[in-house]
C-alpha cells in the first residue's frame, strides 16, 4: 500500500517537525516548519491519489477492547487532505520567515504541527472515537496557539474559543452517540449502510445537532462569536491555518454526517441550511465591514464565506431531497470549490495581514496607510487575495461564487414552491454579501496600503522576508490559475462530489463551463484573455491617439488649504459610516461625541468621536445566559455554607428520602 505508507511518512514528517521544534537550537527552530512542508507534500500526493483511487480502510488500532482508532481513505477525505496540504505547504514557508528569532518559537512550532496533524486526523478518521479525539486535539492545539501571546486578552480569547468549540463538540458527541445507537456501529462506513434504519425523529435530531456542533466550529451565526476573538490574537502563521483550513474540517464533518452517512433528508433540512448560510454570509460581512482591526475584519469575513459554502451545501441538499442528483452534485461542487478557494485566498490574506502586523506592529488599520510603497510585494499580493475574495473575475472566488449562484438559481427546477422562492432569495443574499464584501475590502486595502501613512507604525514598516513573499506569491498564483482554468480545481472537486452523491458532476468544461441543463455558461479563460487584450489595446490606443504627453507630479487637490496631511484622509470608520446609518437596526450603534471649546460655541479645541456597534449576539444572547448561569451558581453556592450541621442535615435528608422512596 504505497498510499498508506505515504500517509504514514507524511505524519511521521510532521511528528518529526513537532519534535524538532522542541529540540532544535532556538535560533534554528523556525526551520522546523520545513518538516511540515515535506509532510504536506506527501499528504498532497497521497490525497490527490485518493481522489481517483477506490476507497480503502487502514488497520484499526485498539484503544480499549471497546473502541479502536481507525483511519479510512476515500475521495471526500482525499479532497480535504488536498485542501489542507495546499495551505499548509505554503504556510510552512511563510512560518519559516515569520517566526525567525521569535520568543517561545519552539512552543509555537510544536502546537502548529500538532494542529496540522490533528486536522489530517479529523478528515481521515474512520470512526467516531478517532474523529472526536482528533477533533478535540485540534481544539486544544488551537487553544495553546491562541494564548501564545502572554496577555490577558489572549487568555480570555483562548478560553472563550475552547469553551465555545467544546460546546459544539458536546453536540457532536451527542449526535455520534445517537447515530451509533441506531446503526449499531461506530464506523462511518457501517453507519452509512445502516442509516436507513434510523427513525426519522433521530435523523432530524442528528441533523440539527450536526448543524449546531459543526456550525460552532465553522462559525455560523449566531455561533460565530469565538472567531473574531480568537483569530486576531493567534500568531500570524496560525490564523491562516485556522481560518483557511480548520473551519473546513467542520464543513467536512457536516458533509460526512449529514450528506454522506445520513443521505437524503426532508426538504426543510436544505432550506434551513440555505437560510443559515445566507444569514451567516450577510451578517458576517456586515459585522466585518465595521471593523478597523485588520485581523478581526478577516475573521468575520471567514464567517461570511462559511455562509456561502453552506448555501451551496443547502442547495445540494434540497436537490437531493427531490432526487435531482446531477443538480445536487453541481451544487455540492460549487460548495466544495468555494471551500477550496476560500482556503487559498483567506490564507493569502491572513498571511498578508500577518506580514503587515509583523512589520508595523499594529492591527489597527486607522494607524496604517500608504504601506504599498514600503511593502510593494506584500501589498500587491494582498490585493490579489482581495480581488479573489471579492469574487472579481477572473480569479477563483468569482468562479465558485458564480457556480453557487447557478446552484441556487437552479432551485427553480424544484417542485417545491418554498424552495423556488428561497433559492433565488439566497441568490439575492449572495449578491448583497458580494457587494458588502467589495465595500469592506476596498476599505481595508485602501486604508492599509493606500494614501498617506497615519502613524509612525506605518512609516517604519518594511517589506517581509522572501520566505513569506514566496508563500504568498504561490498562493496568489494558485488563486489566478484556479480562476482562469477552473477545470483544474474541479478535477479535485468532482471525485469528492461523486463519492457523496453518487452522481458524477455534470459540468461541461470544454472551452467554457456550462451548467447542468445548459442554464448558463461562462468562460473565465476567454474573459481573462480579453481583459488583458483590451487593456493592452487601450494602452496602445491612448498612446496613438494622445501622443507622448508630460506627466506632472503634484500634491493632491486640497481645496486651497495648504499641506494636506494624513489626518485629513478618509478613515475606515468614515468609509463605512453610511452603512452604519443604513443598517442601524442591525448594528445598534452607540455614538459618542465630545467637543471641548476655547470659546463656546465658536472656537473648538478638540472633538473626540467614538462610535461603536453593539455586538448583538454577545450582548443579547451570550451575556445574559452567562450572567444567569453565574447568578444561579452563586445562589446555589450557599448550599456549601461551611456549617457542619447543615452538611449533617444533608445526610439525614438524603437518608430519609431514600428510606421513603427507595424501599
Amino acid at each position, binding site marked *: 500500500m504505497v498510499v498508506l505508507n505515504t500517509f504514514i511518512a507524511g505524519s511521521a514528517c510532521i511528528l518529526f517537525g513537532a519534535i524538532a521544534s522542541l529540540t532544535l537550537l532556538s535560533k534554528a527552530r523556525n526551520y522546523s516548519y520545513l518538516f511540515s512542508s515535506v509532510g504536506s507534500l506527501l499528504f498532497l500526493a497521497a490525497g490527490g491519489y485518493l481522489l481517483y483511487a477506490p476507497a480503502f480502510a487502514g488497520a484499526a488500532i485498539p484503544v480499549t477492547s471497546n473502541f479502536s482508532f481507525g483511519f479510512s481513505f476515500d475521495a471526500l477525505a482525499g479532497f480535504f487532505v488536498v485542501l489542507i496540504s495546499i495551505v499548509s505547504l505554503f504556510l510552512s514557508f511563510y512560518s519559516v520567515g515569520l517566526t525567525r528569532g521569535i520568543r517561545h518559537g519552539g512552543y509555537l512550532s510544536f502546537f502548529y504541527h500538532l494542529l496540522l496533524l490533528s486536522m489530517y486526523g479529523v478528515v481521515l478518521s474512520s470512526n467516531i472515537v478517532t474523529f472526536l479525539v482528533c477533533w478535540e486535539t485540534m481544539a486544544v492545539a488551537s487553544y495553546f496557539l491562541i494564548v501564545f501571546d502572554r496577555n490577558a486578552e489572549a487568555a480570555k480569547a483562548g478560553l472563550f474559543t475552547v469553551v465555545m468549540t467544546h460546546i459544539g463538540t458536546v453536540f457532536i458527541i451527542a449526535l455520534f452517540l445517537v447515530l451509533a445507537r441506531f446503526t449499531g456501529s461506530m464506523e462511518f462506513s457501517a453507519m452509512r449502510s445502516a442509516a436507513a434504519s434510523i427513525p426519522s425523529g433521530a435523523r432530524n435530531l442528528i441533523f440539527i445537532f450536526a448543524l449546531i456542533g459543526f456550525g460552532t466550529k465553522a462559525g455560523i451565526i449566531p455561533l460565530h462569536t469565538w472567531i473574531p476573538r480568537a483569530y486576531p490574537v493567534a500568531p500570524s502563521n496560525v490564523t491562516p491555518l485556522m481560518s483557511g483550513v480548520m473551519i473546513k474540517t467542520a464543513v467536512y464533518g457536516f458533509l460526512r454526517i449529514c450528506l454522506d452517512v445520513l443521505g437524503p433528508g426532508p426538504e426543510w433540512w436544505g432550506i434551513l441550511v440555505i437560510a443559515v448560510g445566507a444569514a451567516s454570509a450577510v451578517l458576517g460581512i456586515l459585522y466585518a465591514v465595521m471593523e478597523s482591526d485588520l485581523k478581526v475584519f478577516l475573521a468575520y469575513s471567514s464567517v461570511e464565506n462559511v455562509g456561502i459554502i453552506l448555501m451551496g451545501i443547502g442547495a445540494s441538499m434540497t436537490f437531493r431531497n427531490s432526487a435531482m442528483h446531477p443538480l445536487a452534485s453541481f451544487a455540492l461542487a460549487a460548495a466544495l470549490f468555494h471551500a477550496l478557494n476560500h482556503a487559498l485566498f483567506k490564507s493569502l490574506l491572513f498571511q498578508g495581514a500577518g506580514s503587515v502586523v509583523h512589520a508595523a506592529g499594529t492591527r489597527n488599520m486607522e494607524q496604517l496607510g500608504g504601506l504599498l510603497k514600503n511593502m510593494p510585494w506584500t501589498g500587491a499580493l494582498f490585493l490579489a487575495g482581495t480581488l479573489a475574495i471579492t469574487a472579481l473575475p477572473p480569479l477563483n472566488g468569482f468562479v465558485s461564487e458564480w457556480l453557487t449562484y447557478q446552484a441556487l438559481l437552479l432551485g427553480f427546477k424544484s417542485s417545491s414552491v418554498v424552495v423556488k422562492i428561497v433559492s433565488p432569495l439566497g441568490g439575492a443574499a449572495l449578491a448583497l454579501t458580494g457587494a458588502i464584501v467589495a465595500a469592506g475590502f476596498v476599505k481595508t486595502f485602501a486604508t492599509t496600503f493606500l494614501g498617506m501613512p497615519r502613524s509612525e507604525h506605518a512609516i517604519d514598516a518594511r517589506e517581509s522576508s522572501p520566505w513569506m513573499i514566496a508563500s504568498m506569491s504561490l498562493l496568489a498564483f494558485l488563486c489566478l490559475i484556479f480562476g482562469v482554468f477552473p477545470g483544474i480545481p474541479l478535477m479535485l472537486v468532482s471525485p469528492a462530489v461523486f463519492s457523496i452523491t453518487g452522481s458524477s458532476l455534470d459540468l461541461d468544461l470544454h472551452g467554457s463551463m456550462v451548467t447542468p441543463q445548459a442554464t448558463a455558461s461562462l468562460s473565465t479563460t476567454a474573459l481573462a484573455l480579453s481583459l488583458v487584450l483590451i487593456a493592452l489595446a487601450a494602452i496602445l490606443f491612448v498612446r496613438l491617439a494622445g501622443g507622448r504627453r508630460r506627466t506632472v507630479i503634484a500634491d493632491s487637490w486640497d481645496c486651497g488649504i495648504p499641506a494636506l496631511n494624513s489626518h485629513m484622509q478618509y478613515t475606515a470608520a468614515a468609509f463605512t459610516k453610511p452603512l452604519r446609518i443604513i443598517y442601524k437596526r442591525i448594528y445598534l450603534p452607540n455614538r459618542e461625541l465630545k467637543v471641548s471649546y476655547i470659546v463656546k460655541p465658536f472656537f473648538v479645541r478638540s472633538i473626540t468621536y467614538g462610535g461603536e456597534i453593539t455586538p448583538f449576539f454577545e450582548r443579547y444572547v451570550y451575556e445574559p445566559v452567562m450572567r444567569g448561569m453565574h447568578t444561579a451558581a452563586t445562589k446555589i453556592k450557599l448550599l456549601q*455554607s*461551611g456549617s*457542619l*450541621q*447543615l452538611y449533617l442535615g444533608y445526610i*439525614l435528608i438524603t437518608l*430519609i428520602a431514600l*428510606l*421513603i422512596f427507595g424501599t
Partner: protein
Amino acid sequence: MKHWLETYSIIDFISVGILLTAVTLNAFKSIESYVKAYTINSWLLAGLIAVVGVLVNESHLYMAAVLTVLTKGVLIPIIIWRIIRRMRVAHEVTPYISNTLSLAISGILVAVVYASLQGGIFVTGFSRDALQISIAVILISLFIMITRKKALTMVMGLLFMENGLFLAGFSLTFGMPTIIELGVLFDMLMGVIILGIFAVQIKRVFASADLDKLTVLKG
C-alpha cells in the same frame, strides 16, 4: 431464665429504653445531662447484649457485654467528663430550635422509620422492632447533632449513634465474631478520642466551642 426473658420480651423493653434515653436528649439543656443519658444508654445496651447472650447461649456475648460496659459505660463517660473540665465550656448545649419542635421532629423521624420499614423486610430474632428502634435511635442522634451548636454535642451525638448501631447489631444478628467486635469497638474508641482531641483544639484555636465559628471554609 431464658424462658422468662422470652415471655416478657425483655429485649423489646430494653430497646425501647434505649430509644427513650435517646429521645430525652431533645429535652436536655446541659452537656452533663447528655453524658448521664449516654451512660444509662450504654448500660442498657450492655444489658441487652447480655440478655441476647442468655437467649442464644453464646458465651462470647457475655464478654461483649462486659466490654461494652467497660468502654461505653465507664471509659468514655470519664473521658468526656475530663474533656468537659479541660475545655471549661459553658454547659448549655444551645440548640438552634426549641425543645418542643425538636421533640416533635424526633417523633416524626420515628414514624418515618416505622412507615418505611413496614413492607418487604422479613424480621426474625427476638424482637420485631429492634431494627426500627435502632435506626430511629441513629436518626435521632443525627438530628441532635444537626440542631446543637457545641462541638461536644457532636461527639455525644456520634456516641449515641454508635449505641443505636450496636443495638441493631446485637439484636438482629446476635453479634459478630469476637475479633471483629473488638476491632469495631477499638476503632470507635479511637474515633471518639480523636474527636475529643479535635474538640479541645477547636476550643484552643478558635477560642470558642461554638461550631458557628467554624464556617470559614465554604463555597
